[in-house]
């Protein structure tokens, strides 16, 4: 089995699909750009890691999934959450640590989860998702429901032993899991060309007996097509596979990172030449009215505005919540 290396043609998707893909990408962009500003107010506790610039990868993958399919995410998880259908307001409340957040303010940015839409959680442990997603795939295989799971990791996470173990076990047990590596070039502040010994994340897959493909992670259509094949492979009992998506991270590793490992010019160049939303627009020209895409962006911005205003005004968790939900019964 080989996975498609050619991008899908825009006309292969319905207008509704195209608009939905853009809606999810625009929501991610607006969400992250706003968080970049909100974080500077000092009102958001802890660490946040922004996904802006990588929108096409999360959305290209998740447009192939159903609510009953699971994804495991990373510390840079907002994009995966939105792509998989998590509620933006619930997310914003959570990031501000409020009682009505998706995790009642107990998880925060790095642990946003919503199992009802198949989101197994952002994960503060690098390389955390692959074993868990492998387990979700075991459930799907055992129940025979044709479900698929996706494990997102970065280039940094690709070096973790958990990832190697999960890939091998997924092959041994022939599980429907797709390992997606978002290679944005940096694990925190260390270059992937330094930390990935072979300098080839996808190339490792062959050693595990896994089909793999490298795609342009900023091109929704390239990711969508590769993921379509990988997901179909899993659903049909064909087992696991690997997608490496080359990406560019617009912001620092975390908010507050001075980005000293790259120049301002490089970042401007990334934003100019590798903007997944711009690339999407160029590919749907003639098929979709650009005014519709503008409207989607405005709606996304409005939704984010509202979610910030509401989240800021929302109630903190009450003291009695401190030890609630450690166990189901204790």
């Amino acid at each position: 089995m080989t996975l498609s290396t050619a991008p899908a043609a825009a006309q292969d998707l319905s207008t509704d699909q195209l608009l939905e893909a853009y809606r999810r990408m625009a929501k991610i962009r607006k969400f992250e750009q706003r968080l970049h500003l909100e974080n500077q107010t000092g009102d958001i506790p802890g660490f946040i890691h922004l996904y802006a610039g990588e929108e096409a990868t999360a959305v290209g993958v998740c447009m192939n999934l159903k609510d009953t399919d699971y994804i495991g995410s990373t510390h840079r998880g907002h994009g995966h959450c939105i792509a998989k259908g998590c509620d933006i307001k619930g997310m914003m409340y959570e990031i501000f640590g409020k009682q009505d957040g998706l995790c009642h303010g107990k998880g925060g940015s790095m642990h946003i989860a919503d199992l009802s839409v198949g989101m197994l959680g952002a994960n503060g442990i690098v390389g955390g998702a692959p074993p868990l997603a492998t387990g979700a795939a075991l459930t799907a295989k055992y129940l025979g429901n044709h479900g698929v799971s996706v494990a997102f990791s970065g280039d940094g996470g690709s070096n973790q032993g958990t990832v190697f173990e999960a890939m091998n076990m997924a092959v041994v047990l022939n599980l429907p899991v797709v390992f997606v590596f978002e290679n944005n070039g940096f694990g925190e502040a260390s270059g992937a060309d330094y930390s990935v010994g072979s300098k080839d994340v996808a190339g490792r897959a062959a050693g595990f007996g896994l089909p793999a493909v490298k795609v342009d992670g900023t091109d929704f259509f390239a990711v969508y097509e590769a993921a379509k094949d990988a997901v179909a492979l899993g659903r049909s009992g064909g087992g696991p596979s690997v997608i490496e998506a080359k990406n560019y991270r617009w912001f620092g590793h975390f908010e507050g990172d001075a980005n000293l490992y790259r120049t301002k010019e490089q970042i401007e160049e990334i934003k100019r030449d590798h903007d997944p939303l711009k690339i999407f627009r160029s590919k749907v020209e003639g098929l979709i009215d650009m005014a519709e895409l503008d409207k989607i962006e405005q709606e996304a911005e409005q939704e984010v505005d509202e979610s910030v205003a509401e989240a800021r005004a929302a109630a903190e968790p009450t003291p009695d919540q401190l030890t609630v939900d450690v166990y189901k019964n204790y």
Partner: protein
Amino acid sequence: MTATSTVKGTTMTQTGEQKTKRMSFRQAINAAMAEAMREDEKVVLIGEDLRGGNGGTNPDPTVEAFGGVFGVTGGLWTEFGGDRVIDTPISESAILGAAAGAAVTGLRPVAELMFMDFFGVCYDEIYNQAAKFRYMFGGKATTPLTVRGIIGAGVGAAAQHSTSPYHLFTSTPGVKVVVPSNPADAKGLLLASIRDDDPVIFCEHKALYDVKGDVPVGSYVIPLGKANFTRRGTDVTIIAIGNPVNAANKVADKLKGEGISVEVLDPRTTSPLDEEAVLQSVADTGRVVIADESAARCGFGHDLAALIAQKGFHDLKAPIHLVTPPHSPVPFSHALEQLWIPGAERIEEAVRTVLKED
């Protein structure tokens, strides 16, 4: 052989006559898994060599070649098949991580870690994942995962196959920890663990596998968090868990002949802990020896001692005595290993000492 004796135990849920069968600790654990798998098809076993030989050079694919490193899972593959008794590569992180992922998405896995010492290569999957899912996801995740593993010194297995790290698990919020001391408890507690909706770490002392006892047949559940008085007495309380319970019982029986009345309290689970039973026994006797194989520092025994110091101080007639291993890895030499183990001799000595103090 089938006996019909009443199962004794002050806090067991099943009262009255229940048929029992004489079997080993190993067989009791096997029976609990079989029972759980029969009653719930979501129960699957996952680990290394649960069956063994699968896909290897075994000429007969219908043969169950191994049945677990101590034979605990023997026969289960034959009864339940490869979809439910899942042999894995030697990949402890993937085993526990996949089991956690399967648990949170709808299965009820029983993962086997083989030797509990190996938690060192994979505990992230419990410590940062399974144990925290429910809390950090705001109560929306349920993770009915049981992790079985072998603990305990005494068979010359040396430093990396002999420890009893249940004190470390006990300090992890979000997991429950079970340390059975006899075959009947092993069955009742394992069935309770598998049915439980929270992650449970189930610690099997390897020196107990061949120990036999009368075990109730069929569905038999002991609730987690309920201690058991294995001996009733009035002069001194020995609190012990796991294999040291048997040493404590021996000491109690010996001293009875001298007119010393020893109570032995087995908490059975370290988390949740039956604080009420501990404090009641302290109130009754006023003298306490704690026999614990976990650690010389920050161990389960120290947790008990702190509880008693804080909530039972005024009932104490003498200082609390801790019988633990030294602050060292488990030695290989039989002579040294016997010194390392908090065994009957040291427990007896502590009891005699605590009786003289005031």
